[in-house]
């Protein structure tokens, strides 16, 4: 290694910081990979494996993907269970004296993707963190929608059931939990997700608490409703820490935390969700023949995700149920009102996801136009809703 070029030295320096991820090293219009990363990527992505420094007696294996189509390559690697650290040129090559400075600008993991091509419109994409070893704290965050939900559970069985509900794509655990073979085995069996170890410091109370206070700009946990819920605080703080560490920026889009008790909702454990074929059929784990499929006649991705949430969490409070039923009754009876609403909403873009890209600085001008088009439909929708009588619909008026 002594005779490596300065650029390769720069590469190895970055690679050493991200030994567990595939490092995409930006060189001009390409992201290059070297050594084992290159071999792995060549195999997984079906791209050519070449070498750098061909003349020398120890050429370095190299493979590259063009930057303009990086999304599809990322998608395949993430799907196959890898994480990718992206190193960009952080100064203008024209102005650089000598070697262009490069830095890892984010780490792409299944639970932290925001790119359009990497997300499934029809479902949330949750990253979860678990704290404690019974009772447990559980935090679930979707940075593409800003959902941040936290709860505490007594038993492992309840924990697993709750996790199954979220269908997370990634889970972070402290080193002590990752060594809990029983837990990890149960998680693997019930939820197909990436399980990552994350640094123990993040799973301590005080750092976690101050992360939360910072994030929500408050000086006590009380307004967040999780004061005294130690494990909930730790899981939530650890998840935030991980997000900042991988995304290299503050998580501005996460603006509220919802602490809930699983006792607010009907409990549907993993077995029951499976047996009743709510989200997946028993035969092939597909969507055909499921309750979700029958009930899905939503006209927006936002509505579809809401339907999934409701199916996962049936209510126990009669008043809340009656409110919804009252609104359904009205819309069932008022055919014009119903059709007008559906027509107005049909084809509405997913502003929840679009605005996350705006906040994270990834939105294009086209995204802003999509947002504008949705905003343009709000006033007419509001006018339509002003004919409504039921409390539930009236409460939804004038967002």
């Amino acid at each position, binding site marked *: 290694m002594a005779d490596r070029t300065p650029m390769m030295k720069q590469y190895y320096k970055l690679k050493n910081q991200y030994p567990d991820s595939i490092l995409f090293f930006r060189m001009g219009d390409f992201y290059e990979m070297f050594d084992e990363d290159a071999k792995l990527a060549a195999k997984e992505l079906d791209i050519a494996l070449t070498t750098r420094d061909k003349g020398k007696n120890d050429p370095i294996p190299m493979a590259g993907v063009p930057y303009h189509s990086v999304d599809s390559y990322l998608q395949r690697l993430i799907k196959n269970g890898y994480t990718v650290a992206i190193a960009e040129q952080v100064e203008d090559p024209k102005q650089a004296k000598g070697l262009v400075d490069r830095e890892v600008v984010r780490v792409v993991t299944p639970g932290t993707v925001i790119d359009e091509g990497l997300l499934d419109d029809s479902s949330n994409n949750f990253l979860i963190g678990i704290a404690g070893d019974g009772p447990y704290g559980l935090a679930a965050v979707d940075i593409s929608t800003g959902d941040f939900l936290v709860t505490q559970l007594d038993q492992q069985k309840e924990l697993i059931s709750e996790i199954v509900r979220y269908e997370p794509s990634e889970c972070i655990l402290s080193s002590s939990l990752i060594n809990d073979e029983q837990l990890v085995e149960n998680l693997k069996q019930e939820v197909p997700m990436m399980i990552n170890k994350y640094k123990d410091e993040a799973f301590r109370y005080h750092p976690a608490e101050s992360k939360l206070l910072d994030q929500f700009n408050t000086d006590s946990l009380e307004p967040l409703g999780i004061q005294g819920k130690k494990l909930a605080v730790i899981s939530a703080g650890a998840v935030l820490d991980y997000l900042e560490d991988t995304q290299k920026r503050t998580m501005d889009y996460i603006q509220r935390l919802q602490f809930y008790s699983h006792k607010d909702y*009907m409990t549907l454990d993993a077995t029951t969700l499976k047996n009743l074929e709510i989200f997946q059929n028993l035969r092939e784990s597909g969507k055909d023949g499921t*309750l979700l499929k*029958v009930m899905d006649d939503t006209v*927006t991705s936002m509505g579809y995700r809401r339907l999934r949430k409701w199916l996962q969490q049936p209510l*126990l409070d009669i008043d809340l149920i009656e409110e919804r039923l009252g609104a*359904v009754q009205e819309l069932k009876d008022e055919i014009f009102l119903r059709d007008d609403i559906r027509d107005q*909403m049909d084809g509405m873009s997913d502003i929840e996801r679009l605005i996350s890209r*705006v906040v994270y600085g990834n939105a294009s001008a086209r995204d*802003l136009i999509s947002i504008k088009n949705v905003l343009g439909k709000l006033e007419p929708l509001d006018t339509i809703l002003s004919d409504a009588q039921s409390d539930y619909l009236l409460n939804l008026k004038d*967002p």
Partner: protein
Amino acid sequence: MTDIWELIDDAIIDDPPTTVKEGGIIKEGFDDDLDELKRKTKEGKKWINTLERKEKDRTGIETLKVGYNKVHGYYIEVSKTQDDKVPDHYSRKQTLKNSERYYTEELKDKEEEIISSEEKMEALEYEIFKEIRDEVGDHSKRFQKTAEVLSKIDVITTFAHLAVRNDYNRPEIGENGRLDIREGRHPVVEKTVDSFIPNDALLDMGNNRYIIITGPNMSGKSTYMRQNALITLLAQIGSFVPAEKAHIGIVDRIFTRVGSLDALTKGKSTFMVEMVELANILHNASQDSLILLDEIGSGTSTFDGLSIAWAVTEYINKNIKAKTLFATHYHEITELEKSLKGVKNLHVAVKESEGEVTFLRKVREGHTDESYGIHVASLAGVPDPVVERSMEVLKQIEEDHTIKMETKDSPKFKQVVFDPSTGETSSDSHPVIEELKKLDIENMTPMEAMNELWKLRKEVED
């Protein structure tokens, strides 16, 4: 959110390109500096457009052309045949086979002007775009709220739409723990069959707490149990339900124990999985829960299974008091209706005429005695010789029993449960008959059945 609409509308053109760094995004009239740069670029390009005509006139070179390429920028091209007419102030830029390319100081200045204002324009457009984007981003909280509202309107409207299209009705919600469903349907299964037979269900905290459902396999027991759970779930998410009428007492949990296909493929013993799930239910169910039990104990020998099913029924009914739907092929269990308060027998009706069995899929009060397992075997395509032989065997067994049963007052199952030894090894019966009794014909493959028959015949012959 009209303010944000206006912000975007004022600044961004309606059909912008996908890239954000190459300009063409910001509307004219939004930013004076940007408009000035655009004007300069335009002017420069206009000047170049008129250059060709001007130079042709000035030099008299007919083949003179003004062109542009990425590497060399703007140039004046003259074919070699007219090289002699080129004025002195033209400087050579590039030589081609048949022509020469030149530039002039004036052209070079204009080019630099254009390039510099184009670069500035693109940079400025990007800056303005980022400002607009950040300003929109500052309202993300309002957007989240709006998205939440839109999603709820969408789902509620969808529920209304489904209620009309699928003929769902509004459930009554109560706290008395009573589930009273009239003409209920399975929301998923009804979509796959021509005519779905609706069924009533009544479960409460009193006499109808524990419903035992008997009936042949494939007669619709599972569908019936599941539809009641699904109707309850739909009611509690605020949807109308596939039933003529429904009163739904709030249920805190739904538990299910049904024969699971996936456990088999994962290589766990079915019986072990069954028991783990059962243990979970017995530990966690409350009197406000709804439990579905499908064929408890089918993964083990008949007597083990029956004993467990019996004990579970007693335990749930006495200790947990949860509303339970229990489908079973242990007809012996139905006897519990007589001794346990809250236990109620239902069965799925079957019509039999001239040896042909029709499943009516209608749930009725009381229990059935026959399991029609052989009929199911026939429906499933088990070869006729096996089906016919099974009928013969069954008939023999039944006849043997009838003779024996006549001499005893108490029904067979009581012996089995309360005194297993007598039931299992009755000394005066042929061992083959005992083996036949234990056969779980409904769950056998034709091959297994065939092998079993061979084995039995061999034993008789021996």
